[in-house]
């Protein structure tokens, strides 16, 4: 499974989100490759899931991956909930 975490610059917050998502997926026993990037790059990349914020999700409409939203990239509870609701393992 391939997951992209996305923020505006693809440097700071998306990397934090990537580390947290990796942690959350590992805790659930789901094996996945997680990469962090910016919106433009994400829109041309293959992936199964894309996790991003509300504003940036609009730029990824129509992507083949399932796009879902986490607003606070540091809130493990929100991340876990979003993964439970959206990821089919």
């Amino acid at each position: 499974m391939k997951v992209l975490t996305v923020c505006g610059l693809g440097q700071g917050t998306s990397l934090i989100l990537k580390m947290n998502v990796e942690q959350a997926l590992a805790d659930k026993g789901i094996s996945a490759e997680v990469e962090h990037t910016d919106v433009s790059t994400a829109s041309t990349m293959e992936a199964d899931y894309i996790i991003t914020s509300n504003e940036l999700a609009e730029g990824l409409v129509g992507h083949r991956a399932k796009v879902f939203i986490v607003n606070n990239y540091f809130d493990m509870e929100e991340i876990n909930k979003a993964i439970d609701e959206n990821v089919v393992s």
Partner: protein
Amino acid sequence: MVDLLMNDVLGTPAILVGLFALIGLLAQRKNIADVVSGTLKTIMGFVILDAGANVIVLSLGQFSNMFNEAFSVDGVIPNNEAIVAVAQQSFGTETAMIMLFGMVVNIILARVTPYKYIFLTGHHTMFMACMIGVILTTGGITGITLIVVGSIILGSLMVLSPAMLQPFTRKITGSDDFAIGHFGSFGYFISALIGRFVGKNSASTEELKVPKSLGFLRDTSVSVSLTMVILFFVVALFAGPAFIESELSEGQHFLVFAFLQGLTFAAGVYIILAGVRMLLGEIVPAFKGVADKFVPHAKPALDAPAIFPFAGNAVIIGFLFSFMAGLISMFLLPVFGLKVIVPGLVPHFFTGAAAGVFGNATGGRRGAIIGSMSNGLIISFLPALLLPVLGTIGFEGTTFGDADFGVVGIVLGNLINVIPSTVLFIIITFVILIILYMIGWKAMKKVEKEDAA
């Protein structure tokens, strides 16, 4: 053999950062596949950075030529990615060493002092390491002294900057879970103070209805392209077709030329960002892993957009007013005899937005507007004042954009020029840092008392 090790291996920044990543990955006991791919990607990230620098330098050169022809003054585009990528070609080893040991100093400080912050915004750590390296080298400090002094300064900034904002960050997020680790903090700090001063009874920005249509600017490659194309068009129109077509474009229509040069700049930034992403993709998680082990109750200091979700309207308002102040400054700077700093959408978007959020937290709408405008002035005037102390790197037509680079660079650069003795410079720098620690510590105690009461 020693020569090979010292010059060709450790003296090649790409290999040096690769070694850091390798050690980090081994320390985390990753499997062999992860170790190999992580190390290679880190080295490749550095090589990509270098390639991006070459693209950007070409486009910057054309911009400077046109700007000079059009207005008879030098115009500078502040862009952290561009200047760092350019500086890596001569200061790569210094940057890598100061960055690594700066992270070590950060962990030690978080362990032994009340400053529990771990600065996780890796690209800013790298940019600051680079600037400190350039300024100290220009001032004549080299070798081990450079690395020791540089990393103590960097490590200190990595805890002082989040600490300075923490009372306001806590107000925004309503918790003490994370801090803001971003070297635009000085602008946010001023914005928050101004907000407190002007914002009596001003309602929050979040009660307004603001169109969300500016959200697309958060996509960096779109906003960089857009800014650069507009800038190149404006400058090309002033420089005139005759000059451009005869001197620069080899006959290509001047507007087509301007359009492509704008996009070349944007492409250079895009390449550099991809390089930085690969370069730091392994180092930052390793840093966090080490910090988690050695620092109990560590508080992560995160990139500025971490606070954006807490005040969506202040983000847009902050960007608009910061950018407006940037445009006004463009005309004010030459009046003061300074180089013209061309405002970019990206620095104004990220730091203007954050300044808006901080200003709103202390002073509502009025705080957000006046606070982010002062941020806009700060990130126009500081980069201009910073240029003279950057040595040869200051002549490339670009400079550091965010506020803390300006404050730190101007203070360090001028101190080193004024004080003839290196030892005295180092002592004074450390005294300043200690004073800052004391101020911060006092403020923390005050907050604790208030919390207890």
